[in-house]
C-alpha cells in the first residue's frame, strides 16, 4: 500500500516516489552535516520515518517534496547534534574523540576532504544545499529558515573559507 497525496500534481504522488527521487539528496545533505556515513544513513532513515507520519501535511503548493524532505532532515539532524552535544559534554572528562569518518564522501580529494572537515557544520550545510544538491537560493532559504540574502552571504563565506583551507593544505 502506498500513501498518495491528493494535491500532488507534478510532484511525487506517493512518499515512495519521493523517497526514490530524493533519497540521495537527503543522504548527501546529512553526510555533509555530520561527516559520518553511518550517522547520515541513520538520520536519513529517521527522516523518512518522520516523513511517513507527516506526509498528509505535505502541501505541494508551499514547496517541493525535495525541500520538504530536506527540512525534515535538518530538524532530525539538529536533534542529533543536540543529543551529541549533550553526550560530548558528559563524556568530556573521559576525553573520547568525536567519531567521524576519515573519508565521508567517496571520491573527494584528501585536500578537499580535510578542508571540509575544518569547516563548521553550518558552513558545510549551505555548501551541501547550494553546491552539491544545487538547490536555488529560495529553496535553500526555506530549508534553513533564513532569507535568500542570508543564504548568499553564508554561501559566499563558506566558499571563501573552503578555498582558504584547501590552499592552506
Amino acid at each position: 500500500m502506498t500513501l498518495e497525496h491528493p494535491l500532488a500534481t507534478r510532484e511525487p504522488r506517493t512518499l515512495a516516489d519521493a523517497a526514490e527521487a530524493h533519497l540521495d539528496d537527503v543522504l548527501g545533505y546529512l553526510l555533509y552535516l555530520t561527516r559520518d556515513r553511518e550517522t547520515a544513513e541513520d538520520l536519513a532513515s529517521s527522516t523518512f520515518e518522520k516523513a511517513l507520519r507527516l506526509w498528509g501535511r505535505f502541501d505541494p503548493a508551499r514547496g517541493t517534496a525535495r525541500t520538504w524532505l530536506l527540512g525534515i532532515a535538518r530538524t532530525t539532524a539538529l536533534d542529533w547534534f543536540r543529543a551529541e552535544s549533550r553526550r560530548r559534554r558528559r563524556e568530556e572528562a573521559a576525553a573520547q574523540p568525536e567519531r567521524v569518518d576519515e573519508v565521508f564522501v567517496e571520491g573527494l580529494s584528501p585536500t578537499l576532504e580535510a578542508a571540509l572537515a575544518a569547516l563548521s557544520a553550518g558552513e558545510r550545510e549551505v555548501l551541501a544545499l547550494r553546491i552539491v544538491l544545487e538547490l536555488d537560493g529560495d529553496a535553500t532559504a526555506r530549508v534553513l529558515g533564513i532569507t535568500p540574502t542570508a543564504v548568499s552571504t553564508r554561501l559566499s563565506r563558506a566558499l571563501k573559507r573552503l578555498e582558504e583551507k584547501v590552499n592552506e593544505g
Partner: protein
Amino acid sequence: MNVTEIVDELRVTRPQASDALRLQVQALATRPPAAAPSLLDRLRGRRRLLLALPAAGALAMVSAIAIGVSQPTSVQEAGSRLRDDQAFGTTVPPTVGQAPEAAADTSREALKNRAGPAGTSAVGPTVGRPQRYSAELQLEVRDADGLSDATQEALSIVRSLGGYAVSTSFGTSEQTGAASLVVRVPTAKVQDALVRLSGLGTIVGQQVQIDDLGDQVSSLEQREATLREQIARLTARLRADDLAPELRATLNARRASAQRELADVRAQATAVDREASLATISLSLRTEDAAAIPATPSRFDQAVDRTVDILAWEAIALLYVAVVAGPFVLLAIGAWVARRTQRRREDERLLSTS
C-alpha cells in the same frame, strides 16, 4: 585550487545512497501509515485559522439573521403599546416631535374614534381636588392658510377663556407647515378649551395627564399649621422677662428660622394653588402634507433592523473579548516568537561549533 574547481569536484562527487539504505527507505515509505490523516490534520496552523475565521463570521451572520427573522414583531408590538398609551392619555411622556409619534400613523382612525368628533372624551379635572392638569393635542389642518387661521383662532380661544400663551412657534413652506403652542387656561375651563381647540382641525393625537396635588397641599397645610404653632409658642416664651440672655438669643434664632420656613411653605402652597388653577395645553398643528408620517416598517425591514442590531452586539462582544484577551494573546505571541528566535540562535550556534 580555485572556487570553480572546488565546486566542480563537490558536484562530481555527489553522494549516492547505498542499495541497502535505498531498500530500507523504500520498505519504510511503502508502509501503511498508522492512521489516515483526518481533515483537521490536513488543515493545520494558519490554514485552519483561515478557515475558522470565515466560518465564525458566517455562523455569527446566520445566527443574527435567524434571530432577526424569527422575532420580527417585537418593534411593532412596542409601537402599538405606545400608541395605545397615547390614545388613552396615560402618563407617557410628551411625544410631540419625537420618533415614537411617527409610529402612530396606523392608529389615526382609532384615535379619531376614541377622541370623538370634537375631543370631548378627554378626561376632565375632578371638581374640588387640586390637580395638575396637562394635555397634548395634535391636530391636522388642510393647508398653510388653514394652519394660520387655526393658530390665530387657538390663541383667541385661549384668551377668551382667561388663559394665555406660554410659547408659540409657527412655520410654513408653500403648502405645508406646522405650529406649536403651549398655553395655560384656567383648570375649570380646560374641558371647554379642549373641545373648542379640537374643533380647529382633525385630531390625530391626544394625551391627558392628571397629577393629583391633594397630598402635597395637605402636607403643606399641615406643615404651615405646625410652624405657626411653633412660632406662637416661641413668641410666648420670649415674652417672659426672666429669660437668660443666651436662651433668649437661641429662642429668637429658632423663631426667625421657623418664620423663614413658614414663608417658604406659604410660597410653595401658593405655587401649588396656581399650578392647580391653570392647566397646560400643548397644541400641535400641522398641515396634512407635513403630517405625512413614514409608514410602519415592513416585516422584512424589521427583520433587517433586528439582524443589524444583533450583528452590532456581536461586534461589541467581539471587541470586548479582543480588549480583554488581547494583552494575553500578545504576550503569548511574544513568548512564542522569543522562544523561536532563541531556538534558531541555539541551532546556529550548534552548527557553527560542530
